[in-house]
């Protein structure tokens, strides 16, 4: 289960709406208890795919390191990533799967005509062949 505060959910949605029709992306910072994960903060990032931003996103290793640093500065971990699918369903594409890492939570949400729609979270299986969907539990609260 991925636990997501309502305020962070809204920030993710707003990022997707703002960047539409491009894909937006960012880092999920938080804590992993071994059974549940709680998102406690976000790092919105720039989509580095300037050639094809409406159906691709890319986060450089430098930005990954910055996100890791932001997490460890707060005593948290970098637990995953979010990105939008403009006018496409909130499930991983084949291209997503080829690029994915295990362990991370991948939040994907659909943005239809600049309006945020459904949000889902996915984790790559260890054999890389497919994903497990991770339920999202929304809780009230402001960012930590």
């Amino acid at each position, binding site marked *: 289960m991925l636990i997501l505060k309502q305020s962070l959910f809204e920030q993710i949605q707003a990022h997707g709406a703002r960047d539409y029709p491009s*894909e937006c992306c960012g880092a999920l910072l938080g804590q992993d208890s071994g059974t549940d994960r709680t998102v406690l903060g976000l790092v919105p990032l720039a989509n580095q795919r300037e050639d094809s931003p409406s159906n691709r996103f890319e986060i450089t*290793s430098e930005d*990954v390191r910055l996100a890791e640093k932001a997490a460890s500065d707060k005593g948290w971990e970098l637990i995953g990533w979010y990105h939008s699918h*403009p006018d496409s369903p909130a499930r991983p594409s084949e291209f*997503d799967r080829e690029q994915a*890492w295990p*362990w991370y939570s991948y939040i994907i949400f659909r943005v239809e005509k600049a309006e945020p729609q459904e949000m889902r979270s996915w984790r790559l299986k260890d054999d890389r062949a497919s994903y497990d969907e991770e339920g999202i539990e929304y809780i009230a609260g402001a960012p930590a």
Partner: protein
Amino acid sequence: MPVKVMIPTPLRQFADKQESVHLEAGTVGDALSALTSQFSDLKRHLYSDDGRLRSFVNVYVNDEDIRYLQREKTAVQQGDTISIVPSIAGGAKA
């Protein structure tokens, strides 16, 4: 020569949950093959089916990207740190 290899968080589960591993290696390629022979489940996440390092797998020797050095032929010396750092990519449609 013993070098240290830093394992990124998403792959630690395949390396006995270790943050880093010390290995004997003369090049980056040696170190990565020693690593994947010790922890075989790491292999599919680091290499594609054709045996090349995946494009979103970034390898640094003491903070220098091996793409700007001699890639997997980059020589390493005792005390060097090899870091495997993810980059993240994807997209809505193939």
